[in-house]
Structures are given as structure tokens and as C-alpha cells.
């Protein structure tokens, strides 16, 4: 009796209570906005702030002896486009980055694929750790090790000398810089690819095989298209990192080898030309941004169809 009485009493209350208005929805989300606020403010202040400041600097005028004079001029950008030296630096940076990224992809994909498909769970963890282990050591320290290996009297020449080959000039060459960059960037590529290949159902490969596809065809028609998002992510990551590489080009490239990041540093810290250094930094950023965005759009267009 009591239960029916109470249900009779609550029923009208339930039916008369109006459906939740959208305003209430907004009010319920308010705490969420509140929680994300600190991080949002931090990102705005800590990341966008310096960027805005640097952009403002790039519009100032450099007067030797006075460092920076407040102005609103595009002279610094004009200088970049007028001076072929800096364009060549950008060109070098671009092709070194493109080549390093490509090599990372070619070398990283088989490793990532092997990790996902062949390694047992136990070994997968260990091998992944081994792959990211170099990242635990400072970039400059690792690069210093490459100097020891690639030097004229270094390990590499000692080894090929031992088998009777004449020594090779590697140190302070673009080749050495590419080797150094690949060694720095490869872990990023492998880890990115590994996580994406992990998401590709192994049955798809079996299915393709049973339909008559060879390993190479399976790779080309099934694995690569499905790994495209990972290839894009890994490629962008490696490309951006090498466009901004500093330690490797300085230490392995030597004094007469120029890439963008060291040149920016040289302008800001050595020539004390902050406005031009800032302008160079923004040129570098703009070029990187345009290239990666273009790549992103091109690839997105191909896989958006089925990936959503």
C-alpha cells in the first residue's frame, strides 16, 4: 500500500518537472570551463606571449650600438628576401630536413612494423624502451658522440681503415648532419608509427594474403594506406624538429654549414640583432607551417573518407 501511495505522489512531480533547458546545460559546463581555465591561460601567456613579443621585435629597427629601436617596419623581412645568403640557409635547412625525415620514415617503418607484428608483448616493451633510450640523453651529448664516430680520425674511419679502405671525410659535411639528425629523430618516428600500426587489424593483412596478395602488395595496398595518419604525424614531427635543429648542425655541420635555427641564434646572441633574428625565426616558422599544413590537407583529403 505504502509503495503505491508514494509512487502516486511522486508521479505528478516527475511529469511536471520541465525538460532541462539549454541554459542549464551551459551552467553545468561552467565548472568544466573553470577547470580548463588555468591551462588555457598558461598556454596563452607562456606560449603565445613570447611569440607575440618576438613578432613585435621583428618589426623593430636594428641600430648598431643601440641594439633595438622601436619601429614598425618590414625591413628585416625585406633583408631576408634581398640577401641570397639567408635564402640559401633556408634552402639547406629545407633539403636537410626533408632528406632526414624521409630516411627516418624509410628506416623507421620496418622497425615499427616489426615491433607491432613480430615482437612478443614482453619484448615489445623492452625494445620500445631501447628505442627511446637515446632520448634520455641530452641531444648535445649524443651529437658529441657522433663527432667521435664521424671525425677524420674517428671510429668510422678507424673501422674502414682496418679493412683497408681509405678514410672518408664525413665530419663537417651535410652527410654527417643528416646522419646525426636521423639518429636524433628516428625514435620519434618509430614510436609514432608503432602506435598507428598497432591499430591496424592483423586480420586485414591475412585477408589480403588469402586473396592472393604478396607481402609487398599487402604492404602497399593495405598497410601503408591505413598507416597514412601515422606516417603523416611522424613525418610532420620529424620535419618540424629537424627544421628547428640546433645542436646537430652546429656540432657536426661545423662553422661553414648553416641551418636556420643556429643562424637565428647567431643573429640574436652574437650579432645582437634581435629584430632580424626574430624576423628569421618567423620566416622559419611560416615556411614550416605552410609545408606541414599543406601536407596535412593533402593527406587528410585522401583518408578522411573512411577514417572518421
Amino acid at each position: 500500500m505504502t509503495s503505491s501511495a508514494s509512487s502516486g505522489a511522486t508521479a505528478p512531480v516527475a511529469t511536471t518537472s520541465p525538460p532541462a533547458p539549454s541554459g542549464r546545460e551551459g551552467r553545468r559546463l561552467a565548472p568544466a570551463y573553470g577547470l580548463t581555465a588555468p591551462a588555457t591561460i598558461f598556454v596563452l601567456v607562456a606560449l603565445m606571449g613570447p611569440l607575440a613579443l618576438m613578432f613585435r621585435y621583428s618589426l623593430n629597427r636594428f641600430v648598431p650600438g643601440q641594439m633595438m629601436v622601436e619601429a614598425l617596419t618590414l625591413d628585416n623581412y625585406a633583408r631576408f628576401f634581398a640577401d641570397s645568403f639567408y635564402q640559401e640557409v633556408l634552402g639547406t635547412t629545407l633539403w636537410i630536413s626533408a632528406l632526414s625525415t624521409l630516411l627516418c620514415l624509410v628506416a623507421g617503418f620496418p622497425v615499427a612494423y616489426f615491433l607491432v607484428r613480430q615482437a612478443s608483448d614482453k619484448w615489445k616493451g623492452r625494445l620500445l624502451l631501447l628505442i627511446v633510450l637515446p632520448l634520455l640523453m641530452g641531444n648535445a651529448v649524443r651529437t658529441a658522440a657522433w663527432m667521435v664516430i664521424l671525425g677524420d680520425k674517428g671510429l668510422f674511419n678507424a673501422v674502414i681503415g682496418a679493412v683497408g679502405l681509405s678514410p672518408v671525410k664525413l665530419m663537417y659535411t651535410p652527410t654527417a648532419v643528416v646522419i646525426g639528425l636521423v639518429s636524433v629523430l628516428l625514435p620519434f618516428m618509430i614510436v609514432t608509427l608503432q602506435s598507428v600500426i598497432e591499430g591496424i587489424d592483423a586480420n586485414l593483412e591475412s585477408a589480403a594474403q588469402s586473396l592472393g596478395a604478396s607481402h609487398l602488395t599487402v604492404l602497399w595496398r593495405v598497410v601503408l594506406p591505413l598507416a597514412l595518419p601515422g606516417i603523416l604525424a611522424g613525418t610532420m614531427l620529424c620535419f618540424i624538429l629537424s627544421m628547428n635543429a640546433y645542436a646537430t648542425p652546429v656540432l657536426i655541420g661545423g662553422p661553414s654549414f648553416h641551418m636556420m635555427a643556429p643562424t637565428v641564434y647567431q643573429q640574436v646572441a652574437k650579432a645582437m640583432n634581435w629584430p632580424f633574428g626574430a624576423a628569421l625565426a618567423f620566416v622559419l616558422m611560416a615556411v614550416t607551417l605552410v609545408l606541414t599544413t599543406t601536407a596535412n590537407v593533402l593527406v587528410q583529403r585522401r583518408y578522411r573518407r573512411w577514417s572518421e
Partner: protein
Amino acid sequence: MSDVVLQSIVKRYDAMTAVDHVSLTIGEGELVALLGPSGCGKTTTLRMVGGFIPVTEGRILVGGRDLTHLPPNKRNMGFGFQNYALFPHMTIAENVAFGLEMRKLPKAEIAAKVKTALDRVKLSHLAERLPKQLSGGQQQRVALARALVIEPDVLLLDEPLSNLDAQLRHEMKTEIRTLQQQLGITTIFVTHDQDEALSVADRVVLMRNGRIEQQGSPDDLFGRPASRFAAEFMGVTNLLSGELAGVGRFRLASGEEVRVDPAGLSGELSLAVRPERLVLDGAEEDHNALPAVVELATYRGLVIDYRVATASGLALIARRPSPAVGGPAPLKPGQPVRVSWHPNAGTLVAA
């Protein structure tokens, strides 16, 4: 179309033997179901036939040709996966065309065959869709079309129905069987569901711990399970352990002595009686009959399952039609009954 012969195949992983000397011949055009619980080696066996898992020992022959060591892409077998494994980045038509492209057929011929294959599973109107836009049942039909369009010598199906809901499962079961008979294709069908195996297969092979436990026609397995495991797996819920007490007499562990169909067995035995064969009232003269009490009644739509217990603690499940389909009035828990069965209704199996 070809027969498939497995000659004592073995798959060992380090210390673990997944498949232990399995010998099996699947006749031309025959549909054999490999049935068993997970870990019994049925899927491993199927994948060895498909070439995805290397065989440790033994040989696999198809149409007399030894392809034990051939890679999957040289075997000309159609494989259906539990999760369908449709290529997500290709349309339905591209999925079906894939195997034909691998065979380097001319474009026009591929288009024609794809159309026929999709017509066969009634999905031509979805040819330009992507797999994710299809329902589970439609995806399974595409997978089937893709496997069959290459005109394989053998069709291998790995739990093809287990991701579908009950209604679709029934439809697909019929569809697979119809297609298989139309094309007369030799088929191995892996499942853990006895009902599926019984309704689809010409022959059921029950596997356990990497070995074949029992094989035969669906009726053989269902009606004459050879072991306690087989009986349990084929859905016999009453398995009464005990021992022979003279010719045609069996003493249950709970103490009662009942008459049984004499079988050439000895030692530890179990008496297997299907719940449908137990009668709860009106015991006939020649029946085994025990006084019991209804403990629990479970209404299941067409039938009602009663758990009854004798004074000695023996619990049995009896099944009767429910009143909805003209069965007798339901019994209530606590009601005394006489549970009885004809001696022929029970099968003695090794315990």
C-alpha cells in the same frame, strides 16, 4: 573444388601443444564444422590450413597437392574472419575486386564478377559504400562475397556468426549453407556454438585440448555423445556419475540403481540423459522412476525447465513444453513428483 586432407598435423608453441596430431579428411563439397571450446585448437587448425600459422609436423593436402609449406597467397583459399576484416579504406566493390586484381584479370571481367558476387549476396546496391556504413550482417555477406569471388578451392570460415545478433545469425547460417551447397565448395567452419555446428555442417568434428574428441554426423554427435565432455558440450545437462552394477544396471553415485541400455563400457562412467527425455508424471511401467521434489522452475518461453531433487540429493533438470504451446500446467516449487525415463533415453559415456 577439392578435398582437404590433414595428415597428423601438429602445432607446438614452445612447451604448449595447440594442435596434437589431428588427422581429418574433408570430402569434396563437404561442410565440416570444427567445434569446441576456446583453446581447443580449432582456430589454430583452420589457420594452419589457410597458411597463416606454420605447421610444426604433418602435411596438408588439397586435391592431392601438398601445400603444407605454401604461403597463404598461393593456396587459393577463401577465408572468412570473425570480424569480417573488410578493408576499411576500400568501397564494397573494391573489397570484392581485390582478389581478382591480384589474379590480374582484365578490368571488364573483374567488374562483371564483382557484380555477380554482390548480386549473389543481394548487396549490389551498396557497391559504392564503405564497410563502416554497413551493418554487421551486410559486412559478413560482403566478406563472404569477397572470399568466394576468387573461386577458391576451399572456403575457411572462422567463427563467422559470432559477432551477429541472434536473428541475423540465423539468417546468415542459412545463407552460408545455401551458398555453400549452390557452389558445392569444400568448407571448414570453425565455431564454439554446438547449435551452429549442428545446423550448418554435414559432419561435426568436436575438438578438445588439440585433439579430435569425436566426429560424425550432427545426429551422431547430438544423439550419441561418446564422452562426458562431448555430452556436456552437446548440451546434455544431466550427467550422472556412477558405475555398472551388473548387465544393464547402473548404480548412481547418489545410491540409486537404474536400468540402462547395455554398452560395451566399463570403469568410471556417467549416464547422460537429456532434460527433454525426463518425464515428471505418469511414469510408464518399464521406466526408471525416482521420487523427487520440484526445487526450481525456470520459464523459457517454449519450455519450462524444472530442477528436481531426490531425497538422496540427486539433482536433475527436466524440460517440458510450457502451457503456451499446449504443455501441461506448470509445477510449483515444493511439489512432489515422480521423475522417470526410459532406459533407452540415457547414454552411458566414459566419465
